[in-house]
């Protein structure tokens, strides 16, 4: 029982960071209808900016701000510099460009910072609070939960309550019609990329301290897990990303704890398949489109 409780809290803590990054993936999907395979690499680049600032100033929060700003700037750069010029009628082209960006960014970071791991600090203690012999969540985990919650709320506000959110979605779904309706489609795309990249950067800041450390490939595995989480939840749904992330975190923790850590990818696949076979558009899918 103690083991179960322990694994549950471990799973929730991990799940929260997956949720954070899954939210960034959901955001870009809603804003541009693409699965941004470069999101992980872009977020790592932002985390390096944070690393540079924190090393120079000694302040975690200045670094955090730098990651946010750097991430958003990179998002704008990628959209204005590259994505804007890819063919929108062929969605796979955008995927390939994103993969090209991954290679370029990772190689660039490798050239700038080398391949070794860099430590990334946390603003709060990661020591688990011990309750009755079971180590529960740490202050840092609580911070992560709060951050994820904040992002979800902001996203919900943006998309349901503001006209900018409506414009962003319209621009993503039907660029030409949106322009006819007076929506600045280019601007919306840029904004979407900036926000998504900013969210991704924040997620990276949350995730990387719980992983091996800062490294050009630091987000590779996180990307895969978070993408899986986002798909489980339904790519269109921010709450889905959170639920998907937590669910996946729990499954992986239990499987790792009871069956062995090598089984986790198989478990992730099984969990994903189980959800998708029951709900092909994820747990929080919107209503099914009418066919004819």
């Amino acid at each position, binding site marked *: 029982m103690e083991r179960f409780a322990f694994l549950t809290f471990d799973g929730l803590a991990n799940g929260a960071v997956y949720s954070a990054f899954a939210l960034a993936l959901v955001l870009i999907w809603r804003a541009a209808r693409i699965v941004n395979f470069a999101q992980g690499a872009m977020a790592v680049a932002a985390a390096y900016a944070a690393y540079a600032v924190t090393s120079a100033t000694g302040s975690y929060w200045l670094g955090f701000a730098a990651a946010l700003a750097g991430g958003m700037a990179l998002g704008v750069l990628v959209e204005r510099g590259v994505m804007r010029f890819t063919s929108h009628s062929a969605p796979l082209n955008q995927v390939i460009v994103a993969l090209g960006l991954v290679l370029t960014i990772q190689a660039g970071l490798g050239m700038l910072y080398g391949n070794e791991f860099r430590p990334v600090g946390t603003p709060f203690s990661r020591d688990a609070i011990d309750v009755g012999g079971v180590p529960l969540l740490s202050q840092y985990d609580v911070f992560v939960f709060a951050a994820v919650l904040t992002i979800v709320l902001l996203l919900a506000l943006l998309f349901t309550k503001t006209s900018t959110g409506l414009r962003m979605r319209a621009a993503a*779904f039907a660029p030409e019609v949106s*322009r006819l*309706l007076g929506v600045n489609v280019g601007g919306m795309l840029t904004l979407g990329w900036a926000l998504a990249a900013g969210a991704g950067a924040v997620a990276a800041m949350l995730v990387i301290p719980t992983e091996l450390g800062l490294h050009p490939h630091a987000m590779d595995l996180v990307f895969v897990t978070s993408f899986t989480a986002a798909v489980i939840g339904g790519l269109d749904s921010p709450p889905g990303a959170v639920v998907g992330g937590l669910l996946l975190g729990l499954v992986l923790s239990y499987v790792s704890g009871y069956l062995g850590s090598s089984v986790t990818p198989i478990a992730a696949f099984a969990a994903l398949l189980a959800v998708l076979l029951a709900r092909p558009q994820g747990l929080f899918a919107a209503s099914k489109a009418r066919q004819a």
Partner: protein
Amino acid sequence: MILQLEGLTAGYGAAPVLRDIHLEVPQGSIVTVLGPNGAGKTTLLRTIAGLLKPTTGRILFDGDDLRGVRVEHLVRRGLALVPEGRGVITELTVEENLRLGGLWRKDSAATMSEVYELFEPLARRNKSMGHQLSGGERQMLAIGRALMARPRLLLLDEPSLGLAPKVTAQIMSLLRQLRDNDGLSVLLVEQNARSALSIADAAVAMSLGRLAETSSGDMRAAYLGS
């Protein structure tokens, strides 16, 4: 003149689809364009709306040359297009589609209830996703959305497509009413020549990318054989 086309030529590739088009739409009038399939009517409206760049010629809206004006700025200047084949954003709800049509307008709530009054199926289904709607409901939504902008010049590409006769008649009388009361100008492309001509102040025939202007009386004779 709210709209003047001077020597407009445009197309998709090497061969032009529109050839040397001259056309004027006076303020507060309804001009209808008739013509066989593939004549270039849709292309004409898309070019005016800025979706297609003319190779030569000028488009004057309110006397201003539209060259270099971005598509997304036209609707605020008062020019709205209802595209052929509806262009409803199917992943948004009916209400979101309508809201999008008049986002920047202060009076959009009032306009929305007018649209709902006009197209009462839309009111019933205001929370439905666009992709759930029937063909005719989508067409109503596309027209209603354009009305949300309260345009001064409305470009309509086959608005009667898929609509019940009663609704078509309603729309035609609405256009007439808006022209008379609000000074709306309309450039109307229709296959349903009868209803189009019933409200048109002027009519032009288009074939193979060229216009042949005639009086609407002649057109009526030509198209309706009466």
